[in-house]
Each structure stands twice: as C-alpha cells, then as structure tokens.
C-alpha cells in the first residue's frame, strides 16, 4: 500500500499493491507471467498463511 500526496497533509488517494484483473479471463491469466501478478499473489498467499482466526463471529445475546 502506498499513499499518493498532493503536497498537503492528507493523501489524495490510497494505492494498493493489488491489481485489477476483473476484466481478464482465467485462461489468459494462466498463460501470463508478470511480476505484478506475482507481487499481488504473494500478498494473497501471505494472508492465507497469517496466523490468527479469520472468522469474525457475532452472538446476538452477548
């Protein structure tokens, strides 16, 4: 993640390392080798192996 700045205190936008692949097809992605894909995938696989409980639970009687 990176924060873009316009010279004032607050960043104007927040940039993720995740890339927008929503318009690509799965077959096309399987054939593509690309460092940005690897970087984004690493972020996802890091999430998969992060310790801790992925579940957020709710008990209406708490």
């Amino acid at each position, binding site marked *: 993640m990176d924060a873009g700045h316009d010279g004032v205190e607050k960043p104007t936008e927040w940039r*993720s390392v995740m890339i927008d*692949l929503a318009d690509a097809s*799965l077959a096309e992605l399987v054939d593509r080798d690309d460092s*940005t894909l690897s970087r984004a995938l690493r972020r*996802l696989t890091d999430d998969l192996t992060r310790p801790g409980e992925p579940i957020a*639970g709710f008990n209406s009687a*708490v």
Partner: protein
Amino acid sequence: MSPRTFRLTDSALAALGAGRPDADTLGTLRRAQLSRHLLLLREIRRAQPEAPAWFARLTAADPDEARRLIADPMTGLWAAHTLRDGASADGPRPGGHSLHTTCADLTLTVRVDDADPLRHLLGLTPAGPLSGSELAHWQRCLDDAWRILVTRHRPAAETMAAVLRVIVPVRPDPAAEGISATSAEAFGAVAMSPPADGTALAVGLLHEVQHSVLNAVHQLFDLVQPGGAPGYSPWRDDPRPPLGILHGAYAYLAVTRFWRAEAPDARVAGAVGGVAGFEFARWREAVMAAAEGLLAGGHLTAAGTRFVTALADEARPWLADAVEPEVARLAGLAGADHRVRWRLRNLTVAAEDVAALAAAWRAGQPPVRVRSVPTAAPGRALENSPRVRLARTLARGDAGRGESDPVLTPGGRAAAADRACLRGEHGAAENAYEECLDRDRGDDRAWSGLALVSPHRAVRERPEVVKALASALPEAEIGVLADWLAG
C-alpha cells in the same frame, strides 16, 4: 499493458471507515475480490500439469457466467482452502437455494447454501439440508428484514444488496441466542443460525456485511500492523487482537446506526427508550471506546488511522443523543457486566503474587503490587449473561416478567441478587452476592455481579485480584480485603 493497481480516493476510504461507502467504492471492492479469486485460481491451475475438470468448466462457460461463478464467495473459500491445504480436486460447486426479495425498487438475491461441502470453513457448524418449512422460514424472515432495511435504512440496504451473496444456515448454539460468522476468505458469504424474526436477521446481516466490507478493504490496504497483543473487546468474551477489535467496532457501527434509526418509534419526552434505546445506548459507548482505544494503541497503519478516525467521527455525535435515563442505566450496566465477566474469564494473578499478597495481609503490611495477566489461550467463546438478558427485558418495559424469567429461575439466591442488581438496589444485591460467595468463593457469576454493585473500588475495577486473594484467605471478609487492596 500492465494491469492497474487498485486505488481509493481519500474521501472514499473515509466514507468506508464511516460505514457509508458509495456504489462506485463497493464496485471497486467487488472487482478486487474477483481479482483475488482469479489470482488464486490461476495459482492452483498452474500447480497442476493437466487442466482439471473445474478449470475446463470455468473456461468453457459464457464469459458472464464464468465471471459470476468465479466471483462467488464459495469459490473464494474453495480456492483459499485448496491453496492452503491442497485438497478438493472437484473445484468450486456453488449450490443451494436462490432466494429473492424486493421492496420498493430494491432487490436482494441470496443463495441459501445448505450443500457446499466446504461451508463449515465459515467457522460454525453447518445445518443439514433444509426442509421446505425451514426454507420458507428463511424466506419469510428475509422478506421482513428487507422491508425493514429498505424502508428505514436505505443506504445500508444498498450496501447489503451490493455485497451479500450467500447465507449458510448453521446450527444454533445453546449458549447464545443467535450466532453468525464471516470468513475473510469468502467475501459476501455469511454463516448464520436460523433467525428468530426479520429484525434479528436484519441486525445479523448488517453486522456480517460490515465484516465482509472490512475484509475486502483490509485485503487492499493493511489497516493494522501485525503483532498487537490481544485485549478487551466489548462484544466478545475472549481477548481479541487489534484487527479483531476493529472488526467488532466496524460491525457494531452498523448495528448502532440501525438501532438509532429504529429508536424514534420508542421516543418518550425527547429521549429514546425501549429495546432500540437500550441497544443504541450500549453499543454507541462500546464503538467509541474501541475506536479511541485503537487510535491510541499504536497498532494502526496510516490507512488504518484514516479509517478508524472516520469511524469515530461518525459515531461520536451519537453520544449526545438523549436516551431515557432508566434505559441508559440498564445499557451502562450491561456494558459494565460484560467487562467484569471478561476480566474474570480472561485475567488471572500469578500464584506467587497471590501468595505474596496473602503473606502481606497476614503480616499486617501494605499490599504488594500485582499484575493481572491474560490466561493462556482461552479460545473463542460465546456466553450468555442472565443479567444482560434481564436488562433487555426491563428495557422493553416488561418489568414484571423479570420475576419469572426462565433464565433466572434456576439458581435461587444468584437470581435474586441479579434482580436486585438490575433494579438498582445495590445494597440488597451486594448482600445477596456476598452470601453466594460465602458458600463458594469461586462463583464467577456472583463475583461479576458483586463487581457491578460493590462500594469497594478494588472489587469494581479488579475483581479478578480480589477473587484470587479472597480464595486464598477464606477467613477474611471480602469488603475488608478490597479496601486493604485499594490502599
């Protein structure tokens, strides 16, 4: 051409933090989740020498249908599970029953999934295949919930329509009234026990959709630095890490806003009351306390600080809303009840510290300083408090029912103490709890009740320390010990 990285404007991130994302931002989150699923599926496929059947199925489908299947929450769950555990060669197989409900011009379409073999990965024990009458119950509750949401909580309904795709029915938990859960690996899926009615479903879905939204934001931007120690969370009985506390605050932001909007129907002389007023008053305090704790705790990233600042800015003005004094008192008591039960469940004093305290007491010396430390891995817990349930009953204006509430019938003396506590009869409650503790100094229900009504500061603020010492010195009076500890 390289694909574009996801970006959010600062105002979009702040609006997300405030729980008010617009349609474009929700569209960005959905594209991010579709991208996540595509990347995970690509990785699974590339690890295999031959194209598996699921890959052939997905790539042969019409592009829109393929996109719909890939974006499905259960596909994300399957892909994460397969990459982590290397199982399930069959591929994702979304199943179940499609339910639709429309109010005004807004439609919610969800799949009630009682078939996916991986649905237990949402964290709760799945129910079996639904009968016709069970499915009809879900449809009825969904219709009622949707009418409530669309007519009185339109922005939240729009968010829900954009995010929620799957409900996995789960078995009820006898220790709780209604339970639900969300996994970071299944954006838009909710596991939930059968709701009592439309309101319960509306609140539960609002809560869980917030978790999905927060999970999607957190996959784009780290909001919390790793490594924060678990601490108090007002909505869980177990200690939670900073990200867990943020999840709770964000989910209850939506719950609090729901009850705030429901409360005008219960307005008396300008102040809100009833159950809506009770829930609103209880959770506004909890959300603000959690948000302020996160902002002061030093574990948020820059993006996390922006997000939580917006969350706190949204909730802070709610603290000024008038709530009927008796309802506000009951809500405050429920919040305090949770905190003292949490301390007694999760904090302990080392045996050598208790021995040092007891030795100082016997020698007539001042107390030594002792620390309360978290007990080892108590795990996830769902517990029901009879006092909170009674507080809700009283807030509903059903004061007489407290006498015969089945939850309070067993336990005799403890039940009488709880009733006195909830009525604000602190002296009577204190005596009754102390009688319970004369019989058993390990009785946590009595200790937590005593901590709510005791005039002794040490009992109110550090009940786990007084309990440990009183158990080591059964001959000593609790109040005297507490005053000695407070110095």
